[in-house]
């Protein structure tokens, strides 16, 4: 598209700029996102407003199209990379203003499983949605999960497995949590391409999340429910 080369972000009004940033996030254009964030900051926008309206708003659309099979992993990685560019500018400013996170998650791929592409997408999308994420990486034994949740006290524990040979390990972790009487202290979400809702329930997880977009939606739902149940 020849006329597209002429977009000057600084010439757009706020509303047009936010719309353009959503397009640019969708296209994974990191430099344009960084430029857009800086322009909005210069125009006096609060960092938290930029985060939620432009970045989280844009990533929500990326997530929806990922969920619906319109975007795939390469495009989502590009979008997440662009998001990271914007976040790198906003993070120190958000820390100064003490902006809240909406929840905390410890996440990791289970022992024996190297596959972390889906897990990384969940991490990025959760951060994009305003969660604090502690990523334990791949190949986590039950001890690694327990140590991390004891130390970090997250709202959510996320586990991922992609292989027939590693899926049952998620139940090992949940059963150990039950034995220690701490299972119900956390929201446990599981994911991985071969799994399904019934599998998630059978191993004692709170929910199975089909993809990163669903993980974000599910996490928000459970966090809201948890807050509603909390003593006033």
């Amino acid at each position, binding site marked *: *598209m020849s006329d*597209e*080369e002429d*977009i000057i972000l600084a010439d757009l009004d706020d509303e047009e700029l936010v719309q353009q940033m*959503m*397009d*640019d996030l*969708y*296209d994974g*254009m990191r430099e344009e996102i960084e430029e857009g964030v800086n322009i909005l900051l210069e125009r006096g926008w609060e960092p938290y407003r930029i985060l939620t309206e432009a970045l989280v708003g844009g990533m929500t*659309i990326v997530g*929806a*199209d990922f969920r*619906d*099979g*319109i*975007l*795939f*992993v*390469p*495009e989502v*990685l*590009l979008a997440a990379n662009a998001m990271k560019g914007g976040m790198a500018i906003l993070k120190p400013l958000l820390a100064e203003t003490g902006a809240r996170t909406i929840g905390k998650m410890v996440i990791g791929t*289970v*022992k*024996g*499983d*190297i*596959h*972390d*592409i*889906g897990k990384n997408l969940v991490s990025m999308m959760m951060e994009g949605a305003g969660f604090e994420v502690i990523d334990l990486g*791949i*190949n986590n*034994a039950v001890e690694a999960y327990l140590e991390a949740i004891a130390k970090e006290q997250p709202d959510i524990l996320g586990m991922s497995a992609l*292989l*027939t*040979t*590693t*899926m*049952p*390990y998620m*139940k*090992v972790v949940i059963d150990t949590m039950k034995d220690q009487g701490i299972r119900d202290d956390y929201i446990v979400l599981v994911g991985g*391409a*071969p*799994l*399904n809702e*019934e*599998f998630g329930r*059978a*191993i004692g997880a709170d929910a199975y999340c089909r993809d990163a977009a669903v993980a974000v939606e599910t996490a928000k739902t459970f966090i809201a429910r948890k807050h509603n149940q909390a003593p006033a």
Partner: protein
Amino acid sequence: MSNALSRLLETRDWLMADGATGTNLFNMGLSSGDAPEIWNLEHPDRIKTLYSLAVDAGSDIFLTNSFGGNASRLKLHGAEGQVRELNRAAAEIGREVADASGRVVVVAGSVGPTGEIMAPMGPLTHELAVEMFHEQAEGLKEGGADVLWLETISAPEEYAAAAEAFKLADMPWCGTMSFDTAGRTMMGLTSEDMVKLVRGLDNPPMAFGANCGVGASDLLRTVLGFSAHGVERPIIAKGNAGIPKYEDGHIHYDGTPELMAEYAVMARDCGATIIGGCCGTMAAHLEKMHDALSTRPRGPRPTLDQITALLGGFSSASDGTGDDVPAPRRNRRRRG
């Protein structure tokens, strides 16, 4: 160049491959999280049993216990220094079982994905991927594999790197991808894209196709997508026996042997020449599949509706081919 697989393909118009590896090894006592490949050295008797299950059920081809046998995967278990040894053992045991069968059975050296994202999006360079696949290929070749068998691949770059590595090892090969995300691979590749990928390779596979994924229906939709572009080389269909369920402390796939028999016959009608199962496909499934393929006549190419009527619904409305591809929610502007 002639090999056991090419000779079988000259005389037969369908071949049966094997079923599950992981599901079977669990039943023999493999612990979740442990590397199945270590058993090639520690429990060769059990691996022999695994291969024999497929051969006794009538499989013409079986895959070696080396799916995770690349340096990147074995590193998790501190066994990255044993790539050659573990792969050689996987193929040696296979050779022994095949040679004792009294008929031609193809030992296919299984090569799974590295689990890494390739550059520029991820850390794995093309050179390193070729090196890892080559190391594994040499081990399988030394152990006596007839062909190499790349499976469960998502990224076209990784498929191409393996093709290059197998050329270095001077081994014939077959290669399947896993179409588990809205009818495409995780990286967004459609069945049509894979046909183009295979056509464009310097060292193309003897046969190509789909394995694993979401279920029998989705897999056959993918096979129809392949065969719609002509059948220049044999198509492989290796679908899961349904979807995984957790029952009585172990994983169980819900597809019955009868269902897999229907799937096998339908896969052949869809244009597949090499038909097998993947996760959850046990000896009982393979026996029914073999019976059905041997005794039932070929039928016309099934429609999508006939597939869903017999095997259940698809996981997504579109598989990215044809005209009904959903539109992006945002406008796209120039790239980069």
